C-alpha cells in the first residue's frame, strides 16, 4: 500500500512545530504502525534528513511508551490497542494519515512525537509506599483476598501509564490513570493502611501537575488500550470523599 503521512515536526519545546507531509511507498499491511514509521525514518536518514523522533520500547503493548494521536484519536482508530499493536491493515491504500504527539500542558513536547510524561512518575511517587513486608515471598494464603476483588484489582493494574486518557480527554485530565492506580492498591488488603493518604496525595499531585478536572465525558475509556473503565473514577471519588471525612 501507498500512504501519505502528515506528521507533527517540532525541534524542541521552545520552538513552534508544524505538520509536514511525507509519502511512504510499498507499505505491507502486516507492518505495525511503528514499523511503517521505521521505514519512513530509513528513507529520511538515507536522504540526509532528520528522522522523526517517536517513543517505543516493548512493541507488544505492555510498556506504555508508544503513544501517538493518529487521525485525531489517541492510539488510532482501533479499540483496546496501543500504537505499537496497530497494524497497517487497519488503513487503506492511498490514505492520508495524521500523526501527532499527545497534547496536554503537563506533557511538553521533547521532540516531534515524543512527550515528557514524568508528571505520571511524580503522581505515582506521591502515592507513597504500602506497608507490605518485602524479602522472601509471603505464603500465598497469608492475606486472603476475595476472588472478585483480586480480579478487579488485576483489571485496574493493567494500566500501563501510557497517557492516552489524557490525550483523549477534552479537559486534559489524567483522572482515569490516577483512578486505576488508586484502585489497584485500594482493593487489596495490602493497600488498606495508606488508602486515604494515597487517594488524597495522588489527586493533589495530579492537580499540581496541571492536569484538568474530570467532567465524566468518557473519552478516556474509549481511548484506553487496556480497557480501564469509567467506574474506577467514581471509585476514586468515593475514596477521596471517604478520606476527607476521616481526616481530623
Amino acid at each position: 500500500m501507498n500512504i501519505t503521512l502528515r506528521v507533527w515536526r517540532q525541534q524542541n519545546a521552545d520552538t513552534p512545530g508544524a505538520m509536514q507531509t511525507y509519502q511512504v511507498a510499498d507499505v505491507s499491511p502486516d507492518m505495525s504502525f511503528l514499523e511503517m514509521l521505521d521505514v519512513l525514518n530509513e528513507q529520511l536518514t538515507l536522504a540526509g534528513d532528520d528522522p522523526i523522533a517517536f517513543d517505543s520500547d516493548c512493541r507488544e503493548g505492555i510498556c506504555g511508551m508508544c503513544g501517538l494521536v493518529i487521525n485525531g484519536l489517541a492510539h488510532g482508530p482501533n479499540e483496546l490497542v496501543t500504537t505499537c499493536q496497530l497494524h497497517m491493515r487497519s488503513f487503506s491504500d492511498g490514505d492520508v494519515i495524521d500523526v501527532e504527539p499527545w497534547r496536554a500542558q503537563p506533557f511538553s513536547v521533547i521532540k516531534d512525537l515524543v512527550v515528557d510524561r514524568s508528571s505520571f512518575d511524580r503522581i505515582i511517587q506521591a502515592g507513597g509506599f504500602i506497608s507490605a513486608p518485602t524479602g522472601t515471598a509471603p505464603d500465598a494464603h497469608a492475606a486472603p483476598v476475595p476472588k472478585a476483588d483480586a480480579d478487579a484489582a488485576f483489571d485496574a493494574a493493567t494500566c500501563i501509564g501510557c497517557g492516552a486518557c489524557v490525550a483523549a480527554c477534552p479537559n486534559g485530565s489524567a483522572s482515569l490513570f490516577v483512578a486505576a492506580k488508586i484502585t489497584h492498591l485500594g482493593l487489596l488488603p495490602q493497600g488498606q493502611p495508606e488508602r486515604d493518604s494515597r487517594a488524597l496525595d495522588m489527586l493533589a499531585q495530579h492537580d499540581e501537575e496541571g492536569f484538568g478536572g474530570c467532567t465524566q465525558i468518557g473519552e478516556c475509556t474509549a481511548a484506553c488500550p487496556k480497557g480501564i473503565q469509567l467506574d474506577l473514577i467514581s471509585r476514586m471519588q468515593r475514596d477521596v470523599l471517604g478520606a476527607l471525612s476521616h481526616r481530623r
Partner: protein
Amino acid sequence: MAISGLVLVGYLVAHMYGNLKVFAGQEAFDEYAHHLRELGEPMLPYEGALWLIRIVLLAAIGVHIFSAVTLWRRSRAATGGKGSQRYASSKAPRGSQRSYASFTMRWGGVVIILFVIYHLMHFTWNTIAPGGASDSPYERVVNGFEIWWVVLSYTIALLAVGFHLRHGVWAALASLGANTSQRRRRNLNILATLVALVIMVGFLLPPFGIFFGLVG
C-alpha cells in the same frame, strides 16, 4: 459542582410542579403563588419561606458557577485553551463517543443563566411585560405565552436545560461515586436522560398549552 447542581434540579422539579397548576385555572395558580408567600406563617414572616428558598438557590447558583469557572479554567490551562480542538487533525472532530450534551455544558450553562435573568425580569421583577402587565401571576403567564417569540425563547432555553441535565445529572451522580459498574454507567445515563426529558417536557407544557389556546 455536583451537589449544587442536584439542589438546582430539585428546585426545577418543584418549580415545574407549580407551573403545571396553570392547567388548573387562574384561581388555583394565583392561590399557589400567594400561598408560597404565606408558607410557614406565623412561624415565619410573610415571604419568609420564599426568601429561605431564594437564599438556598442563590447559594447553589453561586457555588455552581464558581466550580464551573474553576473547572473551565483548569481545563483551558491543561489544553492550551483549545480543549478537544487541540489536535491539528480534523478527522475526529467529535472524538470517539462524547455526546453533544457533554460538550455544550459550559456554553449551555451560560445560555441558561442569561435565560434565568431574562425570566426573572419577566415574572419576578416585572421589569418587562410582554403581552401586558397584570397583578395576577396567572394573567402575566398567559399574556406572555400568547406571544410567539416568548414561546420560542422558552423553547430554546428549555432545550439548553434539557441538554445540560442530560449530561449534568449523570456526571453529578458519577462524581459523587454512584457509578459502580458498567451496568450502572448505562443505568445512570438512562436516568439522566429521563430526568432531562421530564423536566424539559414538563416546563414546555404550559407555554405550548397557552399558545395553542388550551388554557384560559
